[in-house]
């Protein structure tokens, strides 16, 4: 009977979780967020171009490290991941978001496996990760960071899991696959280039210490009277050690370095360094100004020049930025101020998660200290790349740390529920054991569910209409209208206003322009490397003087100041939510 109950419970739980996974990760994927952001479109079109021609839209054949894209050198991983779904579903918002959504689902699955590896409650991990607004948010748009996080997590899980198998023939290739995932992560997102290798390193240290803990046969290597070096040499002499540790780790390291080499070799080329140089605050004016301000306040003595040296200010700023990412306001109350990264209604985690995180990390510290150190290292190196960047705190850049926070939070909820269960069983003795076992879990769960409902309500009801501008709605409608007009006025030039973001890329994407013609006919770039002219389509920053024979696309704001006497036809373009975004003029 009991056994039967447990099975029923297990199946019900799986059905429940699966339902919410589909609801939160896949339902209305192309309409929530309401429209594709320019980066999504750019990655999607590059992938489309690769699929059709084997070159990106700048004409590079199968780039390895980065696409030039808008001159910001996007890592290639996401575009390659999009190829299968593009091949199946053709170019559409759905097909470019699908890899991210699948990555989001794999994050949940891998977190559950990670929970098994850490020997904690996988059910709570499943619940917390399925209902996590942070994960849901980034899983629903084509975010490279989400895919990278999924790959890092998969790498850790596969590597560690195959290690746990304790079968040499399984460990070695399994570890290679895991390492492969970690390497793929470095090709997918900028900050993963630092994070993934460091997590890889941390994991190897963890496995090494776990081996030392478990080995029983070579006690002489634990002899504390010997020096560390001697103990290591003793260990080295054992065949088991060389076979189970040194050999696979060497293989993995070599594989890692070999496949990571293209990035390492390009560290100083713009393909790798461009993005970090753009976003970092190191060596920027504010640091120097602050340093000077303090030095002047101290009357410029030599002490001031030392203690307020720009280096010192920079270090302080790095540490400060690092900890901003752990500030409770950011994590639990408000989230990222950029509405593209966070709903603003709930933060990355829920209010109650604050308490759960404390309990969970204390539990790890007390019961699984080695795992605690590993997870802590993981979190720290996930935040590290973000802590040298401006506009911190940044929910997207530290997404790689989300598995750690979610594991801590889930452990916290688990332990809190356990604590109250045991309290109940202690005081209620044998009366109503069932209530004691389930009621605390249900109460804790309903807390999560209530807060998630708030998030989901906001995300589906308010978010799409409130933040249309950050998701650049209306571009699809604008492009469709432009293409319709092109057929009526084939001789007219098309002038697209830059105010709409990256209109030319939207034109390629929604117009499904043949990539081959883009590669050959679009040559003109602005200083950063973004294409601005394609055939007779031009992008302008300020209104050109010569408007004759053109189809002019102005943003709503620009249209208000535009003298439209010249126009023979005028069209208002509204987005999906009937908000006016663009105005089209046909000028003879």
């Amino acid at each position, binding site marked *: 009977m009991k056994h039967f109950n447990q099975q029923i419970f297990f199946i019900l739980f799986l059905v429940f979780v699966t339902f919410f996974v589909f609801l939160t990760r896949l339902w209305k994927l192309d309409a929530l967020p309401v429209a594709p952001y320019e980066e999504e479109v750019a990655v999607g079109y590059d992938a489309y171009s690769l699929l059709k021609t084997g070159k990106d839209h700048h004409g590079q054949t199968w780039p390895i490290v980065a696409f030039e894209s808008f001159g910001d050198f996007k890592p290639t991983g996401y575009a390659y991941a999009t190829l299968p779904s593009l091949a199946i579903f053709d170019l559409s918002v759905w097909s470019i978001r699908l890899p991210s959504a699948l990555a989001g689902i794999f994050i949940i699955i891998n977190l559950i496996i990670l929970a098994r590896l850490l020997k904690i409650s996988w059910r709570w991990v499943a619940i917390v990760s399925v209902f996590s607004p942070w994960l849901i948010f980034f899983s629903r748009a084509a975010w490279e960071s989400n895919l990278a996080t999924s790959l890092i997590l998969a790498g850790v899980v596969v590597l560690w899991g195959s290690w746990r198998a304790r079968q040499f023939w399984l460990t070695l290739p399994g570890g290679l696959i895991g390492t492969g995932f970690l390497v793929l992560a470095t090709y997918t997102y900028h900050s993963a280039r630092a994070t993934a290798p460091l997590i890889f390193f941390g994991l190897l240290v963890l496995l090494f210490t776990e081996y030392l803990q478990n080995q029983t046969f070579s006690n002489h290597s634990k002899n504390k009277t010997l020096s560390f070096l001697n103990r290591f040499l003793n260990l080295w002499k054992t065949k088991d050690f060389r076979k189970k540790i040194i050999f696979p780790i060497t293989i993995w390291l070599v594989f890692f370095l070999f496949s990571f080499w293209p990035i390492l070799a390009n560290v100083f080329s713009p393909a790798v360094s461009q993005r970090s140089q753009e976003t970092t605050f190191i060596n920027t004016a504010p640091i120097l100004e602050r340093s000077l301000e303090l030095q002047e306040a*101290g*009357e410029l003595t030599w002490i001031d020049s030392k203690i307020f040296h720009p280096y010192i200010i920079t270090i302080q700023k790095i540490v*400060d930025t690092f*900890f901003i990412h752990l500030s*409770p306001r950011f994590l639990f109350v408000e989230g990222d101020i950029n509405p593209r990264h966070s709903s603003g209604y709930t933060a990355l985690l829920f209010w109650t998660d604050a308490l759960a995180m404390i309990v969970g990390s204390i539990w790890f510290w007390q019961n699984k200290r080695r795992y605690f150190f590993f997870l802590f290292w993981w979190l720290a190196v996930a935040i590290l790349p973000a802590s040298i960047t401006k506009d911190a705190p940044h929910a997207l850049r530290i997404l790689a740390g989300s598995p750690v926070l979610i594991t801590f939070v889930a452990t916290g909820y688990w332990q809190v529920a356990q604590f109250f269960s045991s309290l109940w069983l202690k005081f209620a003795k044998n009366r109503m054991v069932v209530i004691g076992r389930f009621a605390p879990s249900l109460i804790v769960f309903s807390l999560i569910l209530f807060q998630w409902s708030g998030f989901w*309500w906001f995300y589906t009801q308010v978010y799409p209409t409130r933040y249309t501008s950050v998701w650049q709605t209306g571009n699809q409608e604008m492009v469709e209208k432009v293409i319709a007009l092109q057929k009526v006025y084939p001789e007219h030039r098309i002038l697209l206003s830059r105010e709409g973001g990256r209109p030319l890329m939207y034109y390629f994407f929604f117009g499904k322009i043949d990539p081959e013609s883009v590669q050959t006919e679009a040559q003109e770039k602005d200083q950063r490397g973004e294409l601005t002219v394609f055939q007779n389509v031009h992008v302008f920053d300020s209104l050109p003087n010569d408007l004759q024979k053109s189809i002019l696309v102005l943003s709503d704001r620009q249209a208000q100041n535009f003298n439209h006497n010249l126009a023979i036809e005028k069209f208002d373009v509204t987005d999906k939510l009937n908000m006016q975004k663009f105005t089209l003029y046909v000028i003879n």
Partner: protein
Amino acid sequence: MSLTKFKLLWISIVILAIVLRFWGLGLTPTSLYWDEAAMAVDARLLAQTGEDMHGLSGLTAIFPSYGDYKLPVYIWFSIPFTYIPVSVEVQIRLVSALAGVFSVIVIGALTYKLLASQSHRHRQIAQLSSMFVLAILPWSIMFSHTAFEGHLAQFFIALSIYCFLNVDKKPSFILLASLLGSISIYTYYSARFVWPLLSVFALAWLLWQHRQTVSQILAKPKKYQKVMIKYAIFGLLSLVLVIVAINLMIHSSWYSAGEQIRLSSESLLTSEPFIQEQNVLREVSGNDRVDRVFSHRHLLQLKAFLGNLSDHLSINYLFFSGDENLRHGTTVFGLGYVAMIPLLLIGLYQLWLKQKSTLWFLLAWWLLALVPASIPTTTPHALRSLNAMMPFAIILGFGLASFFINQSKIIRRLGFVILFFNILCLVRFSYVYHWVYPTLSVSEWQGGYKEVALAIKNLRNEYNHAISYADIGDGRFFLWYLLYTLNSSEYDSQRVISENFSINQIEDHTYFKLPDETSFYSLDRPLIIATSEDRIAELPIPSSAQVTEETSIFNPADGKFFKVLLITKKTDN
């Protein structure tokens, strides 16, 4: 630890605290802030005439001051110090500095008391550690150098809590505790909220500590009748005391006016923005039942409150940057030193392991102290959350102590390493605080006002029948005028004209406004005009008058100059 060693350490920590608090007192920060100046004026006038600047009795629950309705205790306490022949700045700030020193002593006693279940030696080490931490804590040092009522109030609250915790020794301590609590209520407004709740927590902690005794008493109430009656009498007496004290304040004639001012400032209690947001959310989402739940303004208010509260708990605020208001922090240092971060974590964890009840009590104290600071919109706020200083320092102190009470020698040595780093931080802080911070923050401390007041004084000494016109800053310059220009004996509160407690005119020789044309008709008496550089041009100086003397004083608030002019009738040479 031997008694002499303990005493020696105790005394040297107190001396360290005294040195750190009295070093540069009155010089850093460079000048007085409005509130400080107003309190100094009242304290000085009370000492000499027995009346405040508006001619009201000093025995009042609320001083109208410059129209912000100040509580009296800080002013009362600074009256005796006005007889000491030192500068005004030192006189008014001495109370705060002394409160800082006594806080260091009180925190030691509190720590010893709160670690009831530890061994005597461990409690002593914890006592010294927390005293040391508070002695070098930037938060405490900074507020000991300024005359803010909040700093005095936190001292009284802590002392009162200490008395509460000693109730188990003597029932009369309840009365003493409530007396001190009432004083704290009369020192700073937020104490009305913090102190009563905190004393309930203290009582709860005490009952938990003596839970076996309590259950014994409950089992045989008759046996303990005598003691219980004693406690009951003292409890009732102190309740009466507190109620009387609060009633006196509430029935003071200025109470409601003061409350209005405080409630009108921007805070989460003003519901308009939340109602607006709620309505927007409902409009967008369709306003059915679910929408009404999730868009409810109380939910939004709660969220804003939690955000404000969590601002006070972020590592960045506590240890790196502190309050961004330059009056409440240096912006280079946080409330504690960077080297104290491990102490916080270790302190919390060790308290969890060693004495959970104390951890809960301290955390409750900390959070409770943050509540009044989290309701206004300017967060984090180091001044309003000063009541959190004691639990914060006790936790840090216990973190430091747990190094020294560890069995392992290596860890004890590590304790000294951390101590060393903290002292390095202290040295750096002292340098920044005394040499860099004054220049950095001069604009926040009404820089230049004092110099203007003194310049006017110089001119008045020379031309003692002159009429002065002063229009400096936001119309509170009269405080500086009363403080630095006039001798208290010259001041007669009956002969001033004021509006909403802001003085506009003193007798017929001083006006706190710009002169109009009529002032220049007869220049029988020379005019002294003090105003900002920009407004000189607005002066309708007739051709018959001339500027005889002109003094420029730098105004750090806008980087321009204040001008003090002496205008006399033109003499034909």
